[in-house]
């Protein structure tokens, strides 16, 4: 078995995450909202990878747990306190409960039947949240904070002003440090560092699971479940455990989404969100440690940055060219940015799946491999 230098990986990972506001500045993604999304969807993908990457069970239903997490957290903000701790605890607990329920039923089947079952459950939860359970979810509009919510643990807020989510007084959306570095205005805010803390924690838990006997058992299930059953081992408790763990990760991600933006809408439960996390994991590298986070960052970057490039921005980029060439180039690029970001993402996804079956991490390894071989030859 290959030796893993996990301590080093975790250290490098933590440093990169903590310095994200600085490192991301040149890419235009270094604003709090998007960085938090990177971290939160990273957690979501890490959790999903524990199920999909290790056991090979492809679930399309994890959006349901994300949604349950968000609804639970917002209800805690409404009823108990704007402090995020109770909200996050309930989010993880409720998502765990839901995933136990859905997992117990769905895991009676494997392969494509399992996927379809989870898809059906996700769609069911979405429809429930969208209309049937409106008193609980506020339907299409989404569950929001209101001025007259009880919030029994909190002191009375300023009249007419909604309180904001906080961690013992540190407001999530507050930018605590706003320096200018190399011409970039950096924004360090509490919300991102809370999410970053949970991302690093999740990453650490994932490492521990990957290297544990439990993780080995999950890999065995992926490799040959029939054989495992013949040796007298019941695999279902393991798959169910993996399912619940990944559901709880999704719940944590959902809760964190609510701490950053206290609104929970039904579309968070739509199957497209569940499909998106599959894309993240496959794109980044299924069954690897850093892959899911990479995939999450990649997709969220496209969704938020690429989709906002409009014709005016493009003309700005190519304004140094003669007008006819500028117009020509803008005409060619325009369908692939702005509202065409899905197109670019789809094409990239195809390229990755065809040429890099192991995802972006695989690509990075291959490039690394090239270097190593070269240096060896030289030596």
């Amino acid at each position: 078995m290959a030796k893993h230098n996990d301590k080093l990986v975790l250290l490098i990972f933590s440093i990169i995450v903590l310095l994200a506001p600085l490192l991301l500045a040149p890419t235009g993604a270094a604003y709090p909202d998007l960085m938090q999304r990177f971290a939160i969807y990273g957690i979501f993908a890490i959790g999903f990878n524990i199920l999909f990457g290790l056991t090979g069970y492809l679930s399309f239903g994890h959006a349901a747990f994300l949604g349950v997490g968000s609804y639970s957290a917002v209800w805690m903000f409404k009823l108990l306190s704007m402090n995020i701790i109770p909200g996050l605890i309930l989010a993880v607990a409720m998502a765990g409960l839901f995933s136990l329920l859905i997992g117990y039923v769905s895991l009676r089947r494997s392969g494509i039947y399992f996927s379809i079952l989870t898809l059906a459950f996700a769609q069911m939860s979405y429809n429930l949240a969208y209309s049937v359970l409106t008193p609980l979810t506020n339907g299409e509009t989404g569950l929001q904070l209101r001025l007259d919510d009880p919030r029994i643990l909190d002191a009375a807020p300023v009249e007419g002003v909604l309180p904001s989510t906080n961690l013992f007084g540190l407001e999530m959306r507050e930018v605590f440090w706003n320096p200018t570095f190399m011409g970039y205005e950096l924004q360090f805010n509490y919300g991102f560092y809370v999410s970053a803390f949970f991302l690093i924690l999740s990453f650490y838990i994932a490492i521990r699971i990957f290297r544990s006997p439990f993780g080995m058992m999950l890999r065995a299930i992926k490799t040959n479940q029939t054989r495992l059953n013949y040796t007298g081992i019941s695999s279902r408790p393991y798959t169910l455990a993996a399912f619940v763990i990944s559901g709880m990760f999704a719940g944590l991600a959902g809760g964190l989404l609510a701490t950053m933006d206290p609104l929970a809408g039904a579309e968070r439960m739509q199957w497209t969100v569940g499909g998106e996390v599959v894309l993240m994991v496959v794109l980044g590298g299924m069954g690897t440690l850093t892959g899911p986070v990479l995939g999450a960052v990649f997709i969220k970057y496209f969704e938020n940055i690429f989709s906002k490039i409009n014709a005016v921005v493009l003309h700005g980029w190519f304004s140094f060219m003669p007008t006819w060439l500028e117009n020509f180039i803008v005409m060619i690029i325009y369908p692939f940015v702005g509202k065409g970001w899905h197109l670019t993402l789809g094409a990239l996804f195809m390229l990755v799946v065809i040429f890099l079956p192991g995802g972006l991490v695989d690509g990075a390894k291959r490039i690394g491999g090239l270097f190593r071989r070269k240096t060896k030859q030289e030596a």
Partner: protein
Amino acid sequence: MSNFQMNRRGLLKTGAVMGAGMAMPTILTAGSHGGYVNAPTGSTVTLGFNVPQSGPYADEGADELRAYLLAVKHLNGEGDGGMMNTFSSKELKGNGILGREVVYVTGDTQTKSDAARASAQSMIQKDGAVMITGGSSSGVAVAVQALCQEAGIIFMAGLTHSNDTTGKDKKANGFRHFFNSYMSGAALAPVLENAYGNDRVAYHLTADYNWGWTTQESVQAATEAKGWTTVANVLTPLTATDFSSYIAPVLNSGADVLVLNHYGGNMINSLTSAVQFGLRDKLVNDKNFEIVVPLYSRLMARGAGANVKGIYGSTNWHWSLQDDGSKAFVKSFGEEYGFPPSQAAHTVYCQTLLYADACERAGTHNPCGVVEALEGFDFDGLGNGPTHYRAGDHQCFKDVLVVRGKENPTSEFDLLEIVEVTPRAQVEYPVDHPMMGDGNLGTCNPGT
């Protein structure tokens, strides 16, 4: 197998380092604010246009964006000035807003609250937008309005028709120029009474979400006040595309009017299916069977084609209006894009101008100043006649158009004819009307 272990000392050390790292920046906090979020400092001021560019309302979104770009042109003194020339307030000089050139950023709401809020958030945090506007669905408008309230940014709602936007979910930083479900009901009921009598039996098909419910409630209340009865209200899923199974029971219900509380693709499909079933050729209770669509838009009428002929509905504005403002707007929009604007384009153009004008009158972009300037503001010349921005809920009050599908359309844009311009007094309601829920406007939030 693993060489990764964290002992107590290691944990303590890491914790201490991280704690120190987190605490240090708080000492260095720099306060560089102009008293409110995203105060413009340079020679430009940034507005955020957040519209659906994909999803079911992409057509409306595209038309909204065209109108926004036109408004920016006019504000910056390019083009013919459009409705700036007919607007009753003469503060706008074509030199941008408060002397700063207007620039803009765009985003795609995907008709999803989450995506819309992410997009709005990036406009606020990354692009420094001082005002967000847009939306072509009430769910999205309510969500983005709440975000802007929390962030301390002004939100000028685009096409959103649900009572909730300025009712249950109203916010001090949010303003709506568009009309709402209550006004549709109040404007339609008298026209329907004149056309179809006062002893009709109505059957409602309602899209199963907030907008559908408030519209159904409003229309039912308004028509019942005229003597109609309501035999059934059937909720249809928003994602439904085949309405034949919902249409069949209508015939046996004893109803002689079908009200379709649907919008966009839903309305196109349900109306088409109702007409194909031959509902309109039927005689029930010795009366011609009729269909009503409470909220009409030209883009929808085009989708439903010949099926809209003779069908009543309401709309916020129509390009065939003959007042100076409407004519000026249709002219400059038509010259720019080659076809007349939709009501979605009109309302967002007005909202942009109203915001710019409010900033000029307040002398600042500070949300609290803008709120003060817009509250209780009376204006004219923007195509809807004399209009009032009510302070109590930030809803515009103006005349409402009742329209009917044209029997002999002359072009693909000439599909609706105006039946009646319902005067403002007839559609007004008190701020605490029970249908508006128990919302609380709160106070204006300038952020920071």
